[in-house]
């Protein structure tokens, strides 16, 4: 174990997989210079042939990654979450649908790394948290690491996975630190939630950047005598609903903290599953601590009102106890 930043952990995961398999390569805009950070050092180690700077053509190179994967390569594509809209056709019409539409003939081991900046005064065009959109599409695995260790372990699993994966690299977490296993055989499996804190009174599911806020809120509630269980699903597709359902069976209360806008969010889906499958376990209405349903305003005075904060999450927890 070594203490690492989340961003370094992502890079470690990519580098280890590139060492392990010559079919893995990284492409994206300005990746050689690692403008977004996680690819630091990769160009020095792997050179021009495996670290490809692309033109600004998201539709073109998202699709080229699909084609390269279809014939046996394992591309890793770097982009910003907000730029995925530009290449959406290739993500949806090709990456997500090819296997099914062609009756299982296409195997597409491609990873899209969506760097997810928000919260830093970047306004509406650079602040998207769009993972719920991709949960809805189907055929794509949707990964949202919440800790540095998971950033590495999920990245490695994503690169070895035979399906298209989108890994959302939460910008608010990139600078967070934590212990990261050094071993190259450290993998975090998809579809297995992480219980970050055990508790008995309220289940708090926290996604991506809301993980630290959720842990802080749980700590605060503990001082008030409320025991909160914090669960990070880590992957939204596949979703480990059993861990969530068994926690709710124990606590009878559910709060979901989700940085995505609240309508049709990941929180919406998780709450709908609990509503359908565990309604009688609930002792109070479920609470959604998601972002407000607005575009991201530039002014800090407004932006800070949008995302789920420690205070907002704590407030939601208290509501379940009223």
């Amino acid at each position: 174990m070594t203490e690492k930043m989340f961003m370094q952990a992502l890079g470690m995961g990519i580098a280890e997989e590139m060492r392990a398999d010559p079919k893995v390569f990284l492409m994206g805009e300005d990746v050689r210079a690692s403008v977004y950070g996680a690819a630091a050092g990769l160009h020095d180690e792997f050179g021009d042939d495996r670290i490809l700077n692309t033109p600004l053509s998201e539709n073109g190179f998202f699709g080229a990654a699909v084609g390269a994967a279809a014939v046996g390569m394992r591309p890793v594509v770097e982009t910003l979450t907000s730029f995925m809209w530009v290449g959406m056709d290739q993500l949806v019409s090709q990456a997500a649908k090819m296997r099914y539409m062609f009756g299982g003939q296409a195997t597409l081991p491609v990873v899209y790394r969506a760097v997810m900046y928000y919260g830093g005064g970047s306004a509406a065009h650079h602040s998207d948290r769009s993972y719920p959109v991709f949960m809805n599409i189907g055929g794509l695995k949707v990964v949202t690491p919440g800790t540095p260790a998971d950033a590495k372990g999920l990245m490695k699993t994503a690169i070895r996975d035979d399906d298209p994966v989108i890994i959302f690299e939460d910008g608010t977490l990139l600078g967070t630190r934590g212990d990261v296993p050094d071993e190259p055989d450290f993998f975090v499996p998809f579809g297995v939630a992480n219980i970050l804190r055990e508790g008995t009174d309220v289940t708090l599911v926290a996604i991506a950047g809301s993980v630290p806020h959720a842990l802080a809120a749980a700590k605060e509630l503990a001082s008030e005598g409320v025991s909160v269980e914090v669960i990070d699903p880590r992957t939204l597709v596949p979703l480990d609903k059993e861990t969530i359902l068994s926690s709710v069976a124990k606590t009878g209360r559910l709060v979901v903290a989700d940085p995505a806008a609240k309508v049709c969010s990941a929180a919406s889906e998780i709450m709908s599953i609990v509503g359908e499958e565990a309604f009688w376990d609930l002792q109070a209405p479920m609470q959604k601590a998601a972002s407000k349903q607005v575009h991201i305003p530039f002014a800090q005075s407004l932006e800070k009102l949008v995302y789920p904060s420690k205070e907002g999450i704590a407030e939601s927890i208290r509501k379940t106890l009223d």
Partner: protein
Amino acid sequence: MTLNIEKDVLMLMLERMWRIRHFELKLTEMYGAGEIGGVHLYIGQEAVAVGACAAMDDSDYIAGNHRSHGHPIAKGANLKKAMAEIFGRIDGYCKGKGGSMHLADFSVGILGESGIVASSVPVATGAALASKLEGKKFVSAVFFGDGASNQGACHESMNLASVWNLPTIFICENNQYAVTTSYRDTVAVEHISDRAQAYNMPGVLVDGQDAIAMYEATREAVRRARNGEGPTLIEALTYRFEEHSLGLEKIRKSVYREDKEIDEWRLRDPLEILTKNIVDTGMATQAECDAVSTAVQVEVEEAAEFARNSPFPDESELYKDMFSSEMPVV
């Protein structure tokens, strides 16, 4: 007349063109009988796919579009599986999950077709990227229409293929209309092949009714691609004899094209042109050429019977193939 092309290539082209023609004539008949829904016919354009694919190897890849019965058949797809797919049956290429617009056969290098116009162009470009990164020799060709040529995906892919010097062959089938809109109203240059200049690659304008011309142009593009000389844009000037899709015949009564224009292009039937060229060389007689057509008709009838008798996929197929391994149903 002498030709720099072997007899077996010519006869293979003739056979594959007849396979497409009879396959689609059969589909037209079946549509009339209510056996299948509307599909996009390739009749009139057969020389483009067949000439191009004849210049490629089995290990090369192609991708097509919505008007794509011709491309897989030209690359060597099996008529039974293709017909069964159009019937939505379990024995179809995609187990009935793709249908007429998605006749993929990965085993013979057909990376599939796309119902979203131009969407397979980046995918084919990516297959060429893999070839280059791995130091392989295979090339990748993509067929797209004049309408598709206006999509960003096409422009992005041509630029990408050129700056990365990829073995991609962009084959624009200019059948002159996108549904009812003439390319003259939507393309700013005189010829779509002129756009190649902007991407610093050769742009070749070919008579798309002439399979031999298509074969020769593609052979040169393949040679360049395999030699590491980069991509080529081929514009095949051709014509769609039928309406945009079966079921849209009423459009012809509208004003977007004159009957006279259709009649003139029908005089340039690609099958007649190839047959005449073969007979003129003395490599085969008219009777030998006719025999190819007759034999293919039998094959098409067998494919139709096969498709009719194949079962529909059952419920157990519904969730299969969403992912590479089984996932819990949500």
